[in-house]
């Protein structure tokens, strides 16, 4: 099948998970055992196959993008928005990530969620999420992307609060949704501005017409800043990042799929899609850079002191996303997308591995109660090790190449920036290896009986591990003999918009790489000594000295938000309830009722029951009638 034909059936890719979601949801009370899980996995896998075929058939030189028109949606003169799908290099890359890693996580969940009572609902929601995410990345115009954007926010809420009987989980889900919403508002305003200015929301047309806007104009700065606000909400950057660590309340596959591989990368995807607009707004790029850097540094420091296995990974995710935004801020779009891809592999792997550990220990998530698992859960250990090596940036693994691309771009901009990003990488390395050592090395400090996970869970781990190693070849830089295939591939999606040029000399590149690797090795050696030889466990957060306590308490950001936003909002809510709800609304309704009754009581007095009065009234009426007819009064 050639590309055009495959583009025509590309609508199947989101439709299959949607179909799966609807069927499972309809039959959720009837499906027994693992049927829902197999169905959901099958849907996502078939979607992956179609996407893969489309990817193979895609020859950018002949046809860079295909616009698949599904149906006319809004059809008002001056504003025609159709339900379109855009199949180009960028969307194919994301499609492969979503369906590929999605299928693996679906498969993993079959075993992980096996004992849960609401397992059918879980798979329906996972499939629904896949549908929404695919609509997001395959959208042909801003509005279709926005549909997917909202959809993933909703599914995230539903899945974080999956075990809804625990109030704290509900709070976390609500927090995630509200913060997402704040971002969505920015996105929506930007949408409206774009539609007003260009008269269309279609990506191709907007990118073409973007040249009519002057660089650095207030309008373009505002639009791009608002789009970035949307990305902040969705990708958990400063100041809207506190929902992601709390989102670990959801089941581990959810954390792996949504909060590591796919949804949180939607923000980066959006910025890359709108790169034509961002290229015209240098101020916004600076803002993106600063926000990304601050987030990366801040959350990396917090991650060092976390004791919950999933929370460490959560802060690590936010930190890596920060690095991706740094790359975007520097204009290195393909470096960011490359890191998205490799991060998807190893972060999903790490999360699933964590899930395997939790499952093996019967629900324990505190790493201070773990240790010595490398002998018991062998496959999990090996895959987790590979993931950790990848995220730390050890040469040869995929993380090394993608992080290196970002570090190079940072150095090109300013050496201090390179130093900062290098610092983040070293912190990442430190806390990841701390996690690894405390979990798998040493002696077992817990009480439960540990056992290895079934193969349905370990097979996806192995596949992802392979991916973590191999994905580096996608974008091998020139100094290693690669052709930077991904960068050139992605450039076709936007006709030369990605104008990043790395013009460092080969010598500089080798030198920087050497510094990075050397420092990383030092950090690993230090962590080994600290956590394996001596097994220092951190004390409880409140017992630490002042500065460490500040970081361990997450820089008191949650408390700040509670004081700044939640309390006044709660107060306002109570006030409005007392005044508006009770007095105005209830008062108006009650007033209507009571006044009707009072008027009725008044009017009732006419019915006296007295004959004479009735006669009198009748006569008065007759007089009136006669006067009317006789004299026309």
């Amino acid at each position, binding site marked *: 099948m050639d590309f055009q034909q495959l583009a025509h059936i590309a609508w199947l890719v989101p439709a299959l998970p949607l179909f799966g979601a609807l069927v499972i949801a309809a039959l959720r009370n009837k499906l027994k055992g693992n049927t829902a899980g197999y169905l959901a996995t099958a849907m996502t896998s078939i979607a992956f196959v179609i996407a893969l075929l489309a990817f193979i058939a895609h020859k950018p030189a002949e046809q860079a993008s295909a616009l698949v028109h599904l149906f006319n949606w809004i059809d008002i003169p001056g504003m025609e928005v159709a339900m379109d799908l855009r199949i180009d290099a960028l969307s194919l890359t994301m499609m492969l990530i979503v369906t590929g890693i999605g299928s693996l996580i679906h498969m993993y969940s079959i075993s992980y969620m096996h004992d849960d009572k609401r397992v059918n609902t879980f798979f329906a929601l996972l499939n629904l999420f896949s549908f929404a995410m695919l609509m997001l990345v395959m959208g042909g115009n801003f509005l279709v992307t926005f549909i997917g954007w909202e959809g993933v926010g909703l599914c995230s809420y539903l899945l974080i609060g999956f075990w809804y009987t625990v109030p704290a989980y509900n709070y976390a889900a609500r927090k995630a949704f509200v913060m997402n919403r704040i971002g969505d508002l920015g996105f929506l305003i930007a949408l409206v501005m774009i539609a007003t200015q260009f008269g269309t929301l279609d990506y191709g047309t907007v990118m073409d017409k973007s040249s009519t806007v002057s660089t650095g104009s207030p309008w373009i700065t505002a639009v791009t800043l608002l789009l970035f606000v949307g990305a902040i909400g969705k990708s958990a950057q400063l100041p809207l990042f506190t929902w992601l660590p709390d989102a670990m309340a959801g089941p581990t596959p959810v954390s792996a799929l949504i909060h590591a591989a796919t949804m949180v990368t939607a923000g980066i995807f959006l910025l890359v899609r709108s790169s034509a607009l961002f290229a015209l707004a240098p101020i916004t790029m600076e803002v993106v850079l600063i926000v990304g850097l601050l987030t990366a540094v801040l959350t990396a420091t917090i991650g060092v002191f976390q004791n919950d296995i999933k929370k460490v990974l959560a802060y690590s995710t936010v930190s890596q996303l920060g690095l991706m935004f740094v790359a975007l801020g520097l204009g290195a779009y393909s470096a960011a997308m490359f890191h998205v891809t490799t991060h998807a592999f190893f972060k999903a792997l790490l999360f699933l591995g964590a899930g395997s550990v939790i499952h093996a220990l019967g629900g324990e998530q505190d790493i201070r109660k773990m240790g010595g698992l490398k002998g018991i859960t062998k496959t999990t250990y090996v895959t987790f090790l590979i993931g950790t090596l990848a995220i730390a940036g050890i040469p040869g693994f995929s993380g090394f190449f993608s992080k290196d691309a970002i570090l190079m771009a940072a150095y090109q901009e300013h050496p201090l920036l390179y130093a900062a990003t290098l610092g983040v990488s070293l912190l990442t390395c430190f806390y990841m290896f701390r996690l690894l050592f405390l979990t798998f090395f040493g002696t077992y400090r817990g009480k439960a009986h540990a056992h290895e996970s079934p193969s349905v869970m370990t097979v996806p781990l192995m596949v992802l591990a392979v991916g973590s190693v191999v994905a580096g070849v996608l974008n091998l830089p020139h100094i290693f003999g690669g052709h930077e295939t991904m960068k050139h591939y992605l450039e076709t999606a936007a006709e030369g918009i990605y104008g990043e040029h790395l013009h460092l000399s080969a010598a500089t590149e080798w030198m920087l790489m050497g510094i990075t690797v050397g420092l990383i090795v030092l950090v690993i050696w230090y962590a080994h000594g600290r956590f394996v030889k001596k097994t220092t466990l951190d004390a409880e957060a409140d017992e630490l000295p002042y500065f460490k306590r500040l970081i361990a308490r997450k820089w008191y950001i949650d408390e700040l938000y509670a004081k700044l936003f939640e309390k006044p909002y709660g107060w306002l809510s109570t006030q409005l309830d007392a005044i508006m709800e009770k007095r105005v609304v209830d008062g108006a309704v009650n007033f209507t009722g009571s006044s009707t009754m009072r008027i009725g009581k008044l009017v009732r007095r006419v019915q006296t029951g007295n004959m*004479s009065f009735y006669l*009198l009234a009748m*006569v*008065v009426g*007759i*007089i009136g009638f*006669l*006067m009317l007819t*006789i*004299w026309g009064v």
Partner: protein
Amino acid sequence: MQILFYLFAAVSILSALFVVAAKNPVNSVIALIVCFLSIAGHYILLNAQFLAVVHIIVYTGAIMVLFLFVIMLLNLNKSTEPQKSMATRIAAVIAGGLFLLTLLGAIKDGIGIANPDVYDGSVGLVKSVGTSLFTEYLLPFEVSSVLFLSAMIGAVMLGKKDKGQPDGGEISGVA
């Protein structure tokens, strides 16, 4: 001719006022009888002989006597008469007056119907009324007998005493 008319008219109006104003119900009945007699006089003036006679027989002879019977039966006199408030009386008088004024105002420009030139003045004689009754208006005439029957039955049923009352006897079935 006209003097007779005004005489009879005066008597009618005065006795009608007395009917309305009298305290003792028996006085009202007497006044009403006088009123009826004066109206019978009007009929005679209009050469409605049959009607005059029937009017006296039916109205004064039967209906008024019935009224008197009932008043005697219920033992009504001036002391049992319920009191009226002044406001109601004034309201009634005003309403009645207004009504009269309205009606009079309607005919102030004349009735507006022309007199036919010649007609047979024998209308009103027993013969012509009788002929009319038994030819043109035969059906109402016969049906009115059914009306009387139902009135009689109704009166009898209503007049029976209930079981709980003294001298009630049994309640018999519906007639």
